[in-house]
């Protein structure tokens, strides 16, 4: 679909970016020490930190990816909402307080606190960099996807804009400004998602009139010509005379009891009506350079059943490996959250363990409430008549446009701050791993406060440039797919080491180091050799891969635990310094 430049969106976007940059400059004086730069001096109020957790965690994948997945495939996207939130239970009940007790600036601090081992610090900082970079790519790709239709700018400009703004935020005031940007973003995201949900319920469902069916449900054919142009239904793509553009889609074909419209619905009634309705779900098939998008009349009950998305069809498969793939994904989501370095460092920004606990509870309530809304947002988009068949990531902003252009502008700007908040957290985590951990290993001494900040700022700049380059290079990759990589690597490399270092007295430094390295290497190898990567990255048939299923967690997480236990039992424990 060709989008016109939305000047309201540009104005609101500029206002929000201006506000975040002003906030960063205003708060810069609070980040002159290493404690201030990396951990906001532990002075963030637990409530602010809790909402900032939401701002940190609810990434482009959560907002744009999940809403888009539900809008096109129904309940499958909601499985991600469930898994992403469940992971916070691990963070609250197992990790939060011990981590706060032992750490200072980085994830490696907590692991290393009882051992003072260069090997642990090195492996943990490498793992932090790998996970952060994997997580950064989809955020940057998401930024480009968002800016392209809004501003009519090329993808690379959007990616560069996000990179530049984030580097400016982080270099000016480190964790202090990052926290308030994330607080702002978390609050705005939940608020506007609630507004959209109320509007969806108030609008209810309306059946597509019989007279419009033939036109609105006709196939749409997109063809790439040899000279790189796009043709839609046989004509050049465009909005002028003799040109054609794709139609927005998302129709209700029948409601229960033969009604044509429901009027406003309650939150439960919304699902009760939908499950007994008939919806037009859009699918595609590609033959050579031609892709045909076609409507499939589908019962609402089927939409609310898992197993429609290609990556989750294994739930209904007879093959046991397909089912294990799904279990493995849900395991990685459950174990991955509490092992994401950019989430873990937020425990150092509050004053004590009680504040760490309380802020996690606020985070869970905020994130959980948002995830409940995702099902309304996705299904609302599915029936909004506003979807772009070629781009599921635009479902939430286009849903907003079905209500008003102002709301579209606001939601797009909020989606953009979503990317800013998450990327800022990732850049801080990565720069901390370099300035606080890696430099100490290679120079053989801890840097002074001022040196540490200078190195962190230079690292933030370098990480920002790398993120921009990768965001441009991976433009065509699926956003949710890349986030899945980050969760699997984090869950395999970091969680076993963290849990055992905190709770198992017999763990040794070599056991922990081996666990991180084995978890990271095995999950990465598994991912790179999996059928999904064969198809999505190498362009090869999935059956050429000899890996039985694509999600590594169910193998690599236990492998990492077993490695830690085995190596620890085979090595002599040095004196631990338990706090």
């Amino acid at each position, binding site marked *: 679909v060709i989008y016109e430049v939305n000047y309201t969106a540009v104005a609101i976007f500029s206002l929000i970016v201006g506000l975040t940059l002003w906030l960063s400059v205003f708060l810069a004086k609070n980040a002159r020490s290493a404690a201030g730069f990396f951990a906001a001096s532990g002075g963030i109020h637990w409530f602010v930190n809790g909402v900032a957790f939401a701002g940190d965690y609810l990434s482009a994948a959560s907002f744009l990816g999940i809403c888009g997945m539900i809008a096109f495939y129904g309940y499958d996207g909601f499985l991600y909402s469930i898994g992403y939130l469940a992971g916070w239970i691990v963070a609250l009940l197992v990790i939060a307080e011990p981590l706060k007790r032992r750490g200072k600036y980085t994830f490696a601090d907590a692991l290393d606190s009882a051992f003072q081992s260069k090997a642990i610090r090195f492996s943990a900082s490498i793992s932090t960099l790998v996970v952060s970079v994997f997580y950064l790519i989809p955020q940057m790709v998401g930024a480009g996807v968002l800016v392209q239709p809004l501003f009519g700018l090329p993808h690379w400009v959007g990616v560069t804009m996000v990179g530049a703004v984030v580097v400016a935020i982080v270099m000016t005031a480190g964790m202090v400004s990052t926290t308030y940007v994330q607080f702002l973003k978390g609050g705005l995201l939940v608020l506007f998602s609630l507004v959209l949900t109320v509007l969806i319920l108030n609008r209810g469902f309306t059946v597509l009139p019989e007279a419009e069916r033939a036109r609105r449900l006709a196939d749409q054919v997109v063809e790439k010509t040899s000279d790189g142009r796009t043709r839609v239904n046989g004509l050049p793509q465009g909005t002028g005379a003799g040109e054609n553009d794709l139609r927005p889609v998302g129709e209700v074909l029948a409601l229960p009891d033969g009604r044509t419209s429901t009027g406003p619905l309650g939150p439960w009634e919304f699902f009760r009506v939908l499950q007994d309705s008939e919806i037009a779900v859009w699918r595609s098939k590609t033959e050579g350079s031609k892709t045909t998008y076609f409507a499939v009349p589908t019962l609402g009950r089927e939409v609310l059943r898992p197993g429609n998305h290609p990556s989750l069809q294994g739930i209904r498969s007879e093959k046991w490996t397909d089912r294990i793939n799904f279990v493995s994904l849900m395991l990685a989501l459950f174990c991955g959250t509490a092992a994401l370095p950019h989430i873990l460092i937020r425990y150092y920004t509050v004053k004590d363990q009680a504040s760490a606990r309380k802020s996690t509870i606020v985070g869970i309530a905020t994130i*959980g409430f948002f995830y409940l809304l995702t099902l309304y947002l996705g299904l609302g988009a599915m029936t909004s008549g506003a979807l772009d068949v070629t781009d599921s990531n635009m479902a939430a902003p286009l849903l907003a446009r079905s209500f008003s252009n102002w709301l579209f502008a606001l939601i797009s700007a909020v989606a953009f701050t979503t990317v800013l908040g998450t990327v800022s957290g990732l850049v801080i985590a990565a720069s901390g791993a370099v300035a606080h951990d890696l430099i100490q290993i290679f120079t053989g001494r801890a840097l002074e406060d001022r040196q540490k900040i200078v190195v962190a700022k230079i690292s933030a700049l370098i990480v920002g440039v790398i993120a921009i380059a990768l965001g441009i290079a991976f433009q065509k990759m699926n956003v949710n797919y890349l986030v899945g990589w980050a969760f699997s690597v984090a869950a395999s490399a970091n969680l076993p080491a963290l849990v055992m270092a905190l709770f198992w007295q017999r763990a040794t430094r070599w056991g922990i180091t081996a666990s991180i390295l084995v978890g990271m290497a095995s999950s990465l190898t598994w991912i790179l050799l999996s059928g999904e990567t064969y198809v999505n990255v190498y362009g090869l048939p999935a059956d050429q891969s000899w890996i039985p299923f694509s999600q590594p967690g169910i193998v690599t997480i236990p492998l990492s635990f077993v490695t830690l236990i085995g190596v620890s039992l085979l090595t002599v424990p040095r004196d631990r310094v338990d706090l």
Partner: protein
Amino acid sequence: MDHGVNQHQAEDPAAVAGNQRLGIWLFFIYAAIYLAYIAVCVLWTDLLDQQLIGGLVNSVVFGFGLIVLAIVVAFIYGLACRSTILPVVIDPHTAPAETRGPVETRGPAGPGAGE
């Protein structure tokens, strides 16, 4: 090595252990329910189409239930946790006059104290 702003706060080991026990119990309860949900998804998918509560299909009830349960578990944990920070002991003989007041003794802190 310096370990953060709270490194000098003395903690009550009994309260820390108690909170940890509670956390682990709640974790296993939630993890068991989460695993049961995954098992239903892969082994008894048809169960998700049926309606047990309020005329809604179970997929919606179970999904919302897991999210709401996570929030409830978090609040239960928050309310049931004891404070682990021990009150600061002030020696009435050596402390400056303006800090002298009722002397607190070290001991297990009660629920909510010091937070």
